[in-house]
């Protein structure tokens, strides 16, 4: 990869937001234009985990950490089978320097057919998104001549993520076994599951089976699980009605745990409301408090939607101390709980990993 000034100049590219704001930089990765929702993530490490997290499907992720690519990419840091975001937006792209690096980030994106843009004033873009909210955007990197207003118009014309069922686009096509050993059998609904959730479950003595997002509840129960896990995933929870239906059927029959989208779906299934946050929570430094103990964990977060107006059957267990939004719930009657944030981290701090042990306990007390 060539990082000199002239080479960068030759790959001039830009990012146009639907409101007409344009940011100039240079392209890397795949040289194909893309459309997506521009969001930002303030995590200072973990770009490979982010680009392989299926929750980012449909999005352009802007990394606020200014220097990206420094430690390359490694097969061990995959969070799914591929790259799901639509584009990566960075300030400065560097070659790798780390003993674990097997591939340069630019080559990695190219291999997965995804474009990136570097040289962007990511701080300005972030402040813009903070003020205006997440924006539809068009990334022009293919080297052809394209008028900036035309690009912005293409961004505005895009259908966006609201009301879109992205879970069914990223889920596994067939059920598969992640791990064959463990005291408890857990079936994971894959709405866009991150591998580290599966690793954490398996690490807590669970035999893990992953099933497609649309798997009917009865098929899941037929597998005689000790618990069912509702995974994270992309986009709008209101667009995955089938999942909410299935959760209602499972509630009370088997212990449930949910993370992120899975948490929103559990809440919706129980009668909570779910709304869009102005610019979402995307970072690795959010304080989450367990309101029952007062303990605080620094958490990894990635969501645009949040639960609100909890019904009586749900207990509020966790809140985000930055904006007091709902971060965790527990069903008062049935063995079911969920959190909005990411205890599996990857990327981010490991402070909340005892939640997987809580799930283990829940299954233990519910019969086994």
């Amino acid at each position: 990869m060539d990082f000199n000034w002239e080479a960068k100049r030759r790959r001039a590219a830009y990012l146009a937001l639907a409101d007409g704001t344009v940011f100039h930089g240079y392209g890397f990765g795949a040289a194909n234009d893309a459309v997506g929702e521009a969001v930002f993530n303030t995590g200072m490490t973990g770009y490979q985990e982010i680009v392989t997290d299926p929750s980012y499907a449909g999005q352009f992720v802007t990394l606020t950490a200014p220097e990206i690519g420094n430690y390359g990419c490694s097969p061990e840091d995959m969070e799914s089978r591929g790259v799901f975001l639509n584009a990566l937006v960075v300030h400065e792209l560097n070659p790798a320097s780390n003993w674990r690096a097997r591939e340069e980030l630019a080559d990695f994106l190219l291999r997965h057919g995804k474009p990136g843009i570097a040289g962007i004033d990511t701080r300005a873009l972030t402040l813009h998104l903070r003020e205006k909210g997440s924006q539809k955007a068009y990334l022009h990197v293919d080297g052809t001549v394209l008028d900036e207003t035309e690009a912005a118009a293409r961004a505005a014309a895009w259908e966006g993520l609201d009301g879109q069922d992205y879970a069914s686009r990223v889920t596994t096509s067939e059920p598969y076994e992640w791990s064959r050993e463990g005291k408890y059998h857990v079936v994971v609904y894959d709405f866009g599951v991150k591998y580290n959730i599966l690793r954490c479950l398996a690490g807590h003595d669970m035999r893990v089976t992953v099933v497609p997002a649309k798997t009917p509840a009865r098929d899941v129960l037929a597998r005689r699980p000790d618990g069912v896990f509702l995974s994270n995933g992309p986009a709008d929870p209101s667009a995955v009605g089938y999942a909410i239906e299935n959760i209602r059927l499972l509630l009370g029959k088997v212990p449930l745990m949910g993370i992120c989208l899975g948490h929103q779906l559990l809440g919706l299934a129980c009668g909570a409301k779910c709304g869009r946050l102005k610019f979402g929570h995307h970072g690795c430094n959010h304080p989450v408090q367990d309101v029952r103990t007062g303990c605080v964990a620094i958490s990894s977060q990635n969501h645009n939607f949040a639960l609100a107006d909890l019904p009586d059957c749900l207990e509020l267990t966790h809140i985000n101390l930055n904006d007091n939004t709902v971060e965790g719930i527990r069903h008062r009657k049935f063995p079911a709980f969920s959190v909005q944030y990411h205890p599996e981290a990857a990327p981010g701090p490991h402070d909340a990993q005892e939640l997987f042990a809580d799930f283990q306990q829940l299954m233990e007390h519910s019969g086994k």
Partner: protein
Amino acid sequence: MPKRTDIQKILLIGSGPIVIGQGCEFDYSGVQACKALKQDGFEIVLVNSNPATVMTDPELADRTYIEPLTCDILHEIIRRERPDAILPTLGGQTALNLAMELDEKGILKRYNLELIGASAEAIRRAENRQMFKETMQSIGLDLPRSGSAHSESEAQAIAKVIGSWPLIIRPGFTLGGTGGGIAHDPEEFSVIVRRGLEASLNHEVLIEESLLGWKEFEMEVMRDRKGGSVIVCSIENLDPMGVHTGDSITVAPIQTLSDREYQAMRDDSLKVLAAIGVETGGSNVQWAVEPSTGRRIIIEMNPRVSRSSALASKATGFPIAKIAAKLAVGYTLDELRNDITGSTPSCFEPALDYVVTKVPRFTFEKFPAADPTLGTQMKSVGEVMAIGRDFKQSLQKALRSLETGRAGFGADGHDAKFEESGDTDLEHALSVPTADRIFYVRAALKRGWEIDRIAELSGIDRYFLRHLAELASFETVIASCGSLDALARDPALFRQAKILGYSDRQIAFLLNTTEAEVARAEVDAGIMPVYGAVDTCAGEFEAVTPYYYSCYDDSGEPVRDHEGRKAIMVLGGGPNRIGQGIEFDYCCCHAAFALRKAGYEVVMVNSNPETVSTDYDTSDKLYFEPLTLEDIMHIYRREGCSGVIVQFGGQTPLNLAQSLQAAGAKVIGTSPDDIDLAEDRDYFKKLAEKIGIRQPKSGIAHTAAEALSVAHEIGYPVLVRPSFVLGGRGMVIVHQEKHLRKFAEEAARVAEGKPILIDRFLENAVELDVDCISDGETTVIGAILEHVEPAGCHSGDSASITPPVTLSAKIQDKIREYAHEFARALHVNGLMNIQLAVKDGEIYMIEVNPRASRTIPFVSKAIGVHLAGLAALCMTGSKLRDLGFTREVKLPYIAVKEAVFPFIKFPGVDIVLTPEMKSTGEVMCLDRDRGIAYLKSQIAAGSKLPKTGNVFLSVKDQDKPGIIELARELAGLGFTIYATLGTSTLLYDAGIRTRAVFRISRGRPNLLDLIRDGEVQWIINTTESGADAMLDEVKMRSRAVAAGIPITTTVEGAFAALEGVRDQLEFGRFEVCSLQEYHRHLR
């Protein structure tokens, strides 16, 4: 959990004088802690011997003890104040060591005192090498193979077991790695082990497997009493393991670790705090990582706020010391707000959308005999920090902030030394770390050496080297434009140069034009910096605290409204160095405090992360930027400042005064022309004649040859110095023509084209400092300070006493008259310092400096008046009459200032005081009795003057008559006197019994034997300084420093010390008294 109500009165221990390894970062932490605890209604008792600190301002604590930091004195304070708790984690290693001593002597228990922040057990676990190792092993952490030894033979045995070279030796319980080192062979090993055992308070050294060349990282952790923990900042060192982290170039946040590695390090860092038992507060945890396998080893942890915490605070905006203080009294992280956002809690981990680079500042030029190789013992005296959007930008900014004459990463005309070195030398310079290694890296890149080869030699990570390579090659891109016009025709390229951090000076050099032309071209091309905010959250939330850095992005933070106030810019002092330190930061802070109170908006600019001035709540707007014309003027214009204060930040801003004025800034206070006038010899001669004050004969030279003829004319001895330098750089006293030849060349080099000043030197004169303040009409004397050491020793290195001791009232009145005359003649508006000498009842003028002096904080503390604050108000037009300060304060007590030196860090360097300043810090002591005040100052400065025992006397011929009296007094107090043959005979003839020893080169036993055998407790040794110093005497003094034996190098100093020893024997134990109580006697 809310704050504790079972404690009311807290004793806070400061870190004492500035020394290498313990700089003004602990003033910053102390100030934050005082403010935080006072806000919560706690009663604060503060003890610190360093008067140059803001924390010792009487307003910050309820009781402020400016007393020596020793266990005995603390005991007296505890007995008097009966605090409920001691907070020892904010005063560096000094405070921690004192807390341990109080615990070990049973004083904590006797007075039922609780250590808050860290318990004695936790401190012991972190500091005791063996306990630390066991604790780390118990939580499964990897450690270097090592062992700890209490004797040389134990050390040898451990070396055999480890079985590989090199080996690292670290003494237990010391500051900044004093006495440690890297041994490459058995011979080096025994030397360093011996030194380490001597330096260690518990006579212990750790010997370990070398991790040389490994990557080094650090995490700053905060923990509350519920166990809530956050990583405030992560730091990666550019210099690999082997260079003390204080001497390394470092960046924040960590750049080359994947999330997997970073989070594992984070988990382990939190585990370390829990295992050590840090209940609350901030700690740093240091790690080494093997670059090719990722094997990670714990290096150490400090259960206290540290130098890196100050850096981490400034780098992230997270006020570590403030929060640590709050956590120590019971709060938890979730209960405390983040001051920067104003809306989110403190239990979060700052996210950075910029890169911070810290570069250490060295002063090897002051100690030519010192070994410039960097190792595990810290040698830097200060540091700069710069914030940029990426590493390249921040490194360039940091390098131009250093004030070593560099405008960035090379490309400024100062690269010849590096570029011209041969391949072998270059290889050596890359593999042996020194202060200039980064410039050798550039030279190697320019020579076309592969990054791999440089990485191999230096151990510097390729991440850094690639960035450096990009800079080195972009230089060529700029230069190849050929002219500024050509560059300006490619605005994208021009902008790219600024994005890469190139200063106008560098661009001017590359394109053979001037800085002003480049600045003009930028304006024409619309290339201006924008400002990013240090907001702790990478833009996720809006920040309320205006803390900024410049960059060349598309857009930045808007200028915040002044709300009708006039904006005044205060320029800080940049990196600490010898001659320019915390004293000037103190003045800048007071200017900010006073101006804010008076309704001005204060815009602070500084590049030193250790300071109080760069705390986000000292000023209204903080710009963490290099102190260069370019960077300052951008801020001045952006903020629409109505004036800039240059006289408080030391020489740094003063040197910029004329160019700032030329660029359109309004310098308030004494005008730059008048400041320059004070340096104008001819003008000055005339002025002195007009006023009727004598001056030593003097002359000016521009070359070495001219210097010789001037000296011949005015007669020897002469004092030679370059003009426009601070701290006596290049200044010497020369007695003979043959020596002048050499020194004049050195002086001409240091002066960089400015003239060399040559004065007739007044031998055995009493030197004085006079600090005064003027509003342009009224002038008031702050204090007249009399130096203990005679003329010829730099004023910053001399002990000073006020009120003066030997001066008659008539002479003092005459001095006051002169001061008024000078203030009037130079149109002084602000502060002025005058240096005078008195010889045979005649007053001589030495120099006048219309600016803040190093002694302003000391004088302000002594007289209970904030001179710097008043001066700032004068500069904005207030009159002293209206401010209520029109009369000199008469002191009913004695205040003594003593200097503190870094000699223990530079083995082999001569300790004799000369006109070139060498001290890093100072202490102050107050007492009603002059002898006691002086003795206390000696103790505070670390000199363990004995009450009984053996004294060695050896003086130069001129001093011989004076020592008979001295020896008689010593003998009278029961001291046994040792002397060399000549002195011994002289004393014998005067009827004083002594024990004679040989001169070092003549035979044995000699003084070296006495030192080795612990036979001598005090050495009084005066000598010709500089080139005349005998090699064996230098060796002797160096040995004595290493052995911790007090050495007095002037007869005057010996008399003062003796007076103290006598008075102490008479009075018994020391009495302690707070500054607030002293000040009550002033009116």
